[in-house]
């Protein structure tokens, strides 16, 4: 499996940078060329891509399968939603939302990183549902099963007197897109940094990593908090887009979305979760038109992936490229 990743990294280099620039310009041009539905759809893909990339920092890079990332996603969404409703501008609300995700990850991470991988999966799921139980029951603050409704999308809150209003979707689209691209750049930088290599060393053999002087728990903890921050950011960016936050944002089915996206795209390639997010949401958009049983379809897709395509789409693609 590792040589799949190395093969693809050989293909990348400056070409990856060029590709990223082209995709970036194309995505930014969407509001000019298409209507609001396309913007809405692309933003959803971008937010899931960011969410999945943060998940893959733990899964593909470190070998830890979290089933509770929705807790941080929902934390970001609810905190940002509450601040926006209290009249705070968009940028600081989103930032504080992301920080709330990180803060929650500090608490949950303190419990989860001490254990073996199996315990990690179980504990993240349990803590995720703990967050869901709180959101569901703490009606005074979270709105219970109604969620937060009527979230305003007001000023940007970054440029002082020049501050634009983000009420039109096309402006919010640009704002959110820029934030997502910056985050992707940071996550990519992190993936190729010594820190990223350390995570991979832990994935391959945690015991050996420990012996070579790596503080395994501390490193995993940092990765967990960073993942919480970006999951929180993805959630925080959703609140002004949807203008409502529902408790389903904290449910385990939400935690399953980055899992699906990452596996479809390929966990061992950096861009895997991005491609996977687009394919996942595209497939879902099509499947729900034919049947309400889309979970069954995705269950079968996941089954096939686990049995035969553990490298995901990009893993398969890189194998084709290498053999050509």
């Amino acid at each position, binding site marked *: 499996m590792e040589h799949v990743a190395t093969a693809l990294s050989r293909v990348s280099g400056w070409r990856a940078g060029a590709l990223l620039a082209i995709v970036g310009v194309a995505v930014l041009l969407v509001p000019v060329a298409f209507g609001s539905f396309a913007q809405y759809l692309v933003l959803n893909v971008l937010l899931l891509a960011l969410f999945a990339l943060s998940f893959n920092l733990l*899964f593909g890079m470190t*070998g830890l*399968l979290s*089933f509770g990332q929705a807790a941080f996603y929902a934390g970001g969404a609810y905190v940002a939603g509450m601040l926006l409703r209290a009249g705070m501008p968009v940028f600081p609300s989103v930032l504080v939302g992301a920080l709330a995700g990180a803060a929650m990850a500090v608490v949950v991470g303190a*419990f989860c990183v*001490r*254990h*073996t*991988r*199996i*315990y990690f*999966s*179980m*504990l993240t*799921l*349990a*803590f995720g*549902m*703990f967050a869901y*139980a*709180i959101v*569901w*029951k703490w009606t005074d603050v979270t709105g219970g099963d109604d969620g937060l409704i009527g979230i305003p999308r007001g000023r940007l809150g970054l440029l002082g007197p020049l501050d634009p209003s983000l009420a039109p979707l096309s402006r919010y689209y640009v704002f959110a897109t820029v934030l997502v691209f910056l985050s992707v750049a940071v996550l990519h930088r992190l993936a190729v940094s010594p820190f990223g290599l350390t995570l991979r060393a832990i994935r391959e053999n945690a015991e050996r990593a420990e012996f070579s002087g790596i503080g395994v728990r501390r490193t995993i903890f940092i990765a967990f908090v960073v993942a919480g921050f970006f999951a929180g950011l993805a959630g925080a960016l959703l609140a002004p887009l949807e203008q409502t936050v529902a408790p389903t944002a904290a449910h*385990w089915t939400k935690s*399953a979305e980055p*899992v699906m996206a990452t*596996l479809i795209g390929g966990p061992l390639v950096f861009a895997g979760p991005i491609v996977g997010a687009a394919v996942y949401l595209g497939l879902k958009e099509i499947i729900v038109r034919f049947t309400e*049983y889309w*979970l*069954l379809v*995705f*269950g*079968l897709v*996941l*089954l096939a992936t*686990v*049995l035969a395509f*553990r490298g995901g789409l990009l893993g398969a693609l890189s194998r084709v490229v290498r053999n050509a």
Partner: protein
Amino acid sequence: MGRALLFQGLVGITEAMYLWLVAAGLSLIFGVMRVLNFAHGSLYMLGAYLTYAVFRLVGGDFWIALAIGPLLVAAVGWVLEVGFLRRVYRVEEAFQLLLTFAFVLIFDDLVKLVFGPLYQSPPTPKGLSGAVVIAGSIFPAYHLFILGVGAAVGLGLWYFLERTRFGLLIRATAADREMARALGVRASRLFTWVFVLGAWLAGLGGALSIPVRSISPGMGELIIIEAFVVVVLGGLGSLRGAFLGAVVIGLLHAYGLLYLPVFELALAYVGMAVVLIIRPQGLFGVREG
């Protein structure tokens, strides 16, 4: 006051028995195979649906349905292990988890497809529809029956694992897989039977639940998450721990409903967090390497 406490305690322990049946299978499978079965809650759900289907097929005889339903779930377990799980023993454990997770999604929608999305609720079986008076309160006879079954399964498992030859092989494989293999234990066949036994236990839990808890497509997820909390509390792989953990969670729920209704849902998780701080490996768990 004291009576209410005692009564609510009995209710809590009764509810704990369903959880115990699921957690027992989950823990047994993990202890021997080192696989965490996410789909174990789905097997519980299948137990409920399949038993209900048999119940209607045989004209409303609960006892026949109770005998056949869990066996059907055991058969599903056999297909899962032989057909799918066996293929991923050699890859990273995350993919084993993901495989069982795929079946959570598949089974959830399959029961909706076959049985419809509605809640179903068959009647209490004849002969157990009455009630007894305990501590001045009326206690359904069916609850007593559940307590009896839970205890019987506990004793049966103990006897099976500690006193039979097959149980000895299971314990040996759980303790040291390589050594057991080297001594001639056919581990792959043993794995299949352990998985089938675990599936049967979950199916039995689901089958027993149908007269008192309504059947719905989401019931599997609810119980698997609680079962995870239970095995974290008791120590993954330990049957004693699973039993004690289930009772603790059952009591927390029962008394939580009585005294802290708003936080009732969260209490189990708080309990889990407390145990993790004091004893990370769980009450009866072995410290991880």
